[in-house]
């Protein structure tokens, strides 16, 4: 562990300042050595300068609880990656998890305890003072006046808070997560009488139907789902799964679907019941026990009955039902894509569907209670706010959640805080809640603290501080313990732990006994730390239909005004509920669907827009019963014509430089009405007004159609099974006679022979990549991983509008069809440097800054680059990125790494200065690092030993890296796959990247 041993924070910073050589700029070399080299006072354990140390911990960016490995160099974390031992994410991580680093190093973190002074301004105070103030306030308040709001804290901290509150005689904490799965829980209770969230095993399902569940983006545990989905749905050996997505809007998850069905908003339950009806009445599968309980309900929902109300043809419903039971299947519901006021009915109907199809216990697993949000409830938050307004709260603590922003704006948590006698925020950032608190006691970042988290029953994930705290922050657990100690008396007596770490270990000692592990605790603890936690399979729990299922009412289809459009407010897959908005990587991460960055937008169907005279970028005023916001229009064909959609997450009034004042707060459009399931609705009837203003959209996309160029290719499963491998593109090429081909080959060989001089002679690897488009979901985790690995600057919305984003890998999203009755299809393709064998970029560089390395990369020597930009003109893939400004220079307005954000710079990668071209080189620093290791160990490199950053994090394992010249390598085999093709291969660039065509599993009538 990174132990301090007397080295205080300031000194630590100094150490970093010098050792962080990677932060050095690509400026000219100068002889005047004024830089300081500062050694450690005492050598930290396991740390060798120049060698990375890895620590296991747990990601706390969302309630999924993925395990992470933090890469530490010279005492600072430079990257987080997935922990392969965690059963949740198996070594993979999403964009938000990768960007947790920018939470740690966020320049707008609160740097020490602050108290609101008489003037209303925050002033720094000491920790002792802060603890004294809390103690004093608590002593002046009776237990019923003390309230505590936490985010999702399933684990020891939650126990500590509960215990601490109980010691004070106060009520248990209110747990609030904006996307709290109240509907799913409600449905489990209603249908099965179980207050649990099941685990969905997408890997075991060959047929997936999702009723609005965005399970690849934010729903429950997206990384786990993506892995499972790729396994179950991805094409392998002539077969693949089939995925049907049911949602009025085609979300990113929906883009992966083989079929997208857009029902009337709010009618998903009817479709599920209709399918269940077919399964039960036609006895497509053996009848499940207790089916009689739902028979009456199903009787009323024959496909013909629901067809009108769902807008889906009866034949389609019947087909879906038959398909659903033909193979191992799973139906998922309740994501925010269907989070309307009837969401619990949808979830319950889908539970019934899964039940009658026999999926419960096979692909829908109860027992391993997913704890993504704990018993979160918007209803409880609502009653707390009422209590606050009525003066019923004397002391309020808020930890790990920002209800002043991430709740329907009418909740007005901030306003209610003004009525609270004394409010304490443990926020790490100046978010909207912290701004209204009286005392702000910044918590450690999850990467700086001891803690644990239970993503599901049986999975105990540990967090350990992987580096010294960056600022003068303190673990909130330690604060609570200190308050208890200072309060004295019975409260102090209840907490024997000196520190939160001790408290944590006490809990883990109990856990060890529970698990029946009788080793010395140290051994158990060390192993858990090394592995990132303790993983046990939770026993499965058999469930049957509960009596309450008969209470299931069919959803009341709302009758909205005719001209009204249903607004769907969905969580941004990057910013989530808004907590990611202060991370520039996430702000700049193009939305997987719209490719928008740094902003809020209104998605509207092109035909709806045309009918209303709306063009892309027109600023629209969206009004619902709850409020009005303005945002530019984005024309999106993946919507029903009577629906508009807006992403949540922006519109912060605080939360630091990257978040504040950006986009619009869509929570302002959501009603505060508590739904039957205790949550709030993400749907609202809305009207649009064109403001007459216009804005150039900050999107990274040029054209959304491929114009028949075959960039992202697809093939139908049926065609593949008939031996047809894919689309023909650029069909102009006449067949080349054999003798001509032979001649061409000879010329080519002769030319190749003329390149084998010096370093180019001998047996050399050819580094290559294979990307399976049947697995890629477009989630864009690779983009953020690349940012993190390669020190890529973020440029901000104005430069994105100028097309100057720098991400070396981008996910291209193309639409097919969607017009003239053709079903809409979305295709995604990760585009990075193709490392061409005959790279057009290279010969045009006058100074050899771009050249072929002997191991088949297109090397880019930044310090040699003069900046003619010819290489980029000549790159057909447009994967070269120019430094228009000096993003690495603190004196430049375009500086991308304000202190301490520059600490996340990878010391193994040069930070580029203005005027040079940069690009992907397959993480050449990782290649060289592994080559050094192998050489020093006197062995050969193994296939799979080198992982590129994008490959490492890809949740669906779509990217494979390796040596093309090694016939036994995975990439070599994939490059010869029947689905393999090169993008723009007709240009004879001989790319090192092989794409495997996406496979579309269409039904007979679709195909």
């Amino acid at each position, binding site marked *: 562990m990174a132990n301090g041993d007397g080295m205080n924070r300031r000194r630590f910073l100094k150490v970093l300042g010098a050792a962080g050589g990677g932060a050095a700029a690509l400026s000219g070399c100068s002889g005047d050595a004024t830089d300081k080299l500062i050694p450690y006072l005492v050598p930290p354990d396991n740390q060798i300068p120049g060698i990375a140390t890895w620590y296991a911990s747990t990601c706390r960016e969302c309630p999924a609880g993925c395990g992470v490995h933090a890469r530490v160099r010279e005492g600072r974390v430079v990257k987080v990656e997935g922990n392969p031992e965690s059963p949740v994410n198996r070594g993979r991580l999403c964009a938000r998890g990768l960007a947790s680093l920018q939470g740690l190093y966020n320049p707008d973190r609160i740097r020490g305890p602050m108290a609101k002074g008489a003037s209303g301004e925050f002033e720094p105070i000491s920790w002792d003072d802060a603890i004294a103030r809390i103690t004093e306030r608590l002593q002046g308040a009776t237990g019923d006046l003390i309230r505590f709001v936490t985010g999702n804290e399933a684990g020891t901290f939650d126990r500590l808070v509960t215990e601490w509150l109980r010691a004070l005689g106060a009520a248990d904490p209110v747990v609030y997560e904006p996307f709290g799965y109240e509907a799913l829980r409600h449905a489990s209770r209603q249908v099965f009488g179980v207050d649990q969230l099941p685990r969905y095993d997408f890997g075991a399902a060959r047929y997936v139907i999702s009723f609005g569940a965005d399970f690849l983006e934010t729903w429950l545990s997206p990384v786990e789902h993506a892995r499972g989905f790729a396994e179950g749905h991805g094409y392998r050996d002539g077969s693949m799964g089939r995925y049907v997505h049911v949602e009025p809007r085609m979300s990113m998850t929906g883009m992966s679907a083989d079929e997208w069905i857009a029902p009337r908003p709010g009618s998903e339950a009817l479709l599920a019941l209709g399918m269940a009806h077919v399964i039960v009445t036609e006895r497509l599968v053996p009848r499940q026990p207790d089916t009689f309980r739902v028979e009456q309900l199903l009787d009323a929902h024959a496909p013909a009955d629901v067809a009108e109300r769902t807008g889906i043809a009866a034949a389609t419903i019947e087909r879906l039902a038959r398909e659903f039971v033909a193979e191992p299947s799973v139906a998922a519901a309740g994501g925010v894509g269907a989070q309307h006021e009837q969401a619990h009915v949808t979830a319950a109907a889908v539970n019934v569907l899964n039940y009658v199809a026999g999926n419960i216990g096979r692909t829908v697993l109860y027992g391993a209670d997913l704890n993504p949000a704990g018993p979160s409830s918007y209803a409880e938050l609502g009653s707390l706010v009422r209590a606050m307004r009525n003066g019923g709260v004397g002391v309020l603590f808020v930890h790990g959640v920002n209800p002043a922003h991430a709740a329907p704006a009418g909740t007005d948590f901030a306003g209610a805080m003004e009525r609270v006698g004394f409010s304490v925020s443990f926020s790490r950032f100046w978010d909207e809640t912290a701004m209204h608190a009286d005392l702000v006691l910044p918590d450690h970042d999850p990467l700086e603290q001891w803690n644990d988290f239970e993503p599901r029953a049986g999975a105990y994930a540990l967090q350990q501080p992987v580096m010294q705290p960056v600022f003068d922050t303190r673990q909130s657990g330690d604060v609570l313990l200190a308050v208890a100690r200072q309060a004295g008396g019975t409260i102090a007596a209840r907490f024997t732990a000196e520190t939160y770490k001790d408290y944590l270990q006490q809990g883990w000692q109990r856990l060890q006994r529970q698990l029946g592990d009788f080793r010395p605790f140290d051994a158990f603890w060390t192993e858990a730390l090394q592995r990132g936690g303790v993983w046990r399979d939770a026993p499965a729990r058999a469930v049957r239909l509960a009596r309450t299922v008969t209470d299931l009412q069919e959803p009341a289809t709302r009758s909205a005004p005719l001209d009204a459009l249903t607004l769907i407010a969905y969580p941004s897959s990057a910013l989530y509920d808004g907590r990611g908005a202060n991370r520039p990587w996430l702000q700049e991460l193009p939305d997987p669907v719209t490719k928008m960055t740094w902003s809020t937008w209104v998605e509207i169907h092109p035909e709806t827009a045309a009918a209303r005279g709306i063009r892309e970028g027109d600023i629209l005023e969206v009004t619902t019963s709850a409020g009005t916001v303005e945002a530019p229009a984005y024309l999106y064909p993946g919507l029903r014509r009577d629906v508009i959609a807006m992403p949540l997450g922006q519109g912060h009034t605080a939360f630091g430089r990257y978040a504040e004042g950006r986009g619009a707060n869509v929570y302002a459009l959501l009603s505060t009405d508590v739904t039957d399931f205790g949550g709030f609705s993400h749907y609202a009837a809305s009207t649009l007004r064109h403001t007459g203003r216009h804005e150039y959209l900050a999107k990274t996309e040029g054209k959304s159609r491929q114009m028949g160029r075959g960039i992202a290719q697809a093939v139908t499963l049926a065609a593949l099974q008939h031996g047809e491998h894919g689309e023909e593109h650029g069909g102009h090429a006449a067949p080349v006679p054999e003798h001509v081909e032979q001649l061409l080959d000879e010329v080519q060989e002769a*030319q*190749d022979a*003329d*390149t084998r*001089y*010096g*370093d*180019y002679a001998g047996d050399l690897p050819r580094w290559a990549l294979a990307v399976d488009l049947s697995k890629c979901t477009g989630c864009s985790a690779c983009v953020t991983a690349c940012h993190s690995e390669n020190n890529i600057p973020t440029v901000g919305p104005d430069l994105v509008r100028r097309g100057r984003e720098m991400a070396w890998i981008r996910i291209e999203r193309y639409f097919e069809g969607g017009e003239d009755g053709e079903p809409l299809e979305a295709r995604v393709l990760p585009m990075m440097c193709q490392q*061409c*064998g*005959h*790279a*057009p*970029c*290279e*010969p045009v*560089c006058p100074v*050899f800054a*771009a*050249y*072929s390395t002997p191991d088949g990369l297109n090397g880019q020597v930044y310090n040699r680059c003069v900046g003619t930009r010819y290489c980029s003109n000549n790159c057909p893939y447009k994967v070269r990125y120019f430094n228009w400004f000096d993003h690495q220079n603190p004196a430049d307005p375009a500086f991308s790494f304000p202190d301490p954000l520059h600490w996340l710079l990878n010391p193994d990668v040069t930070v580029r200065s203005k005027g040079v071209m940069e690009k992907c080189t397959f993480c050449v620093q990782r290649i060289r690092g592994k080559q050094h290791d192998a050489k020093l160990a006197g062995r050969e490199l193994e296939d799979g030993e080198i992982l590129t950053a994008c490959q490492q994090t890809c949740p669906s394992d779509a990217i494979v890296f390796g040596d093309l010249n090694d016939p036994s390598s995975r990439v070599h085999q994939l490059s010869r796959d029947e689905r393999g093709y090169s993008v723009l291969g007709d240009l004879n660039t*001989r790319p090192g990247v092989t794409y495997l065509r996406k496979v579309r599993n269409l039904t007979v009538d679709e195909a």
Partner: protein
Amino acid sequence: MNKTHPGGILAAYQHVDAAAAAIKALKAKGYRDVTVYTPVPNVEIAQAVGHKVSPVRLWTLLGGLLGCASGFALTLWMSYDWPLVVGGKPVGSVIPYVVIAFELTILFGAGATILGLLFHSWRTRQAGAYDGRFTDDQIGIFVACPVERRPAVEELLRHSGAVEVRVET
């Protein structure tokens, strides 16, 4: 003007045929050291003087050949000095280097021509008396000769139609 020239007779002519005739006459009389000034190059005069074709063209040829050779030498040697492969092309690709060789051919050829011009003009420089009118509209003939022969030359020139004849010492 400088006075470093040897003494002689300077004559100015208005008419080109008169001047040409005078030159021929001087040549016939065996005067070798004759300098003719003309405002523009003139074939008649040149024929009268009877020079061989200027050797400057040899310079051009040699310069061009040298440029061409050095163009190929430079590019090929530099390519193999540190072999770097770009776009899968041979390390030393002669075809694109033709462009460089061509440009150097021209550059060296032109440079050599100028050098040749300067060199030969310097070698064949004629020290003689001069008058500003000779770059305007008159033709000048300067005959360097010892004092004793001057009257004869002066006589010849005057009779050949010179508008002015003067003795330069």
